[in-house]
């Protein structure tokens, strides 16, 4: 009987046809493995949330600048449209664009780090399982030889 919940791991071990290997994996997937894989999954989901959050933050930056512009300069300058002002004030437009890119890059940074953590944790679990499987297989082979 498998010890691990298929819901938690999804299709991660799907196709591991070999019975001995499957049995070994189910025995080896202990609490530490499960918690590591759970953290990996949370990190993977959270990375996407962070990425979307920073994209929205970049869009928000534009609208924030627009609002500040209207509050600060409404009525005092000839151009009422924010977009029109951006075409006149090129340095401000570049600054705004660079700050938006900065938000996106920060999002990308957190996304990649969290994805890396997720991938790394899964690889650690897999490495451990591989070593344990190999040890058990070697043990069986040696007992068969005897």
């Amino acid at each position, binding site marked *: 009987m498998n010890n691990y919940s298929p819901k938690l791991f999804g*299709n*991660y*071990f*799907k*196709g*591991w*046809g*070999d019975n001995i*290997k499957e049995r070994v994996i189910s025995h080896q997937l202990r609490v530490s493995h499960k918690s590591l894989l759970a953290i990996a999954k949370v990190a993977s989901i959270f990375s996407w949330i962070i990425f979307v959050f920073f994209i929205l933050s970049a869009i928000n930056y534009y609208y924030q600048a627009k609002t500040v512009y209207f509050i600060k300069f409404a009525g005092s300058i000839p151009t009422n449209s924010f977009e029109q002002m951006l075409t006149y004030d090129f*340095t401000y437009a*570049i*600054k705004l664009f*660079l700050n938006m*890119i*900065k938000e996106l*890059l920060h999002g*990308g*940074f957190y996304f*990649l*780090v969290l*994805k*890396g*953590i997720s*991938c*790394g944790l*899964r*690889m*650690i679990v*897999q*490495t*451990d399982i*591989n*070593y344990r499987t*190999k040890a058990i297989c070697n043990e069986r082979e040696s007992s068969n030889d005897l």
Partner: protein
Amino acid sequence: MISENAHQDKFKLQKEAFFLIKWLNRAANLIIIFYIILYLQQIPFWHEIILRDLDEYSIWPPVIWIMACAVCLAEAGINSILYYLPLQTMKVILKILINMEYTSHYGEHALLLDGTLGARSIKK
């Protein structure tokens, strides 16, 4: 013996890691370039500040520009390092983990097939 699907699953994880390594490297380089551009456009701002602060001392104008450039480059450098180092560290950790995982499955001999890192063959 492990089935074909199991091999594909394994390779999927390793391919994901290789993909991440590639993008971690790209992001690290991109962040350096971005921060240099971001702080280069702040040189006039820093020039104004230094000029205002050191107005009483009659300093040769190019020196003020050089000082402004130095401040901007220092800012860019510090900010770049703050992002560059974690990305590069993550890249190296993933490389080591790929190596470890590959060795755990195929053994030491498989690792040294191409003389350096056997896991590179999976990338292709």
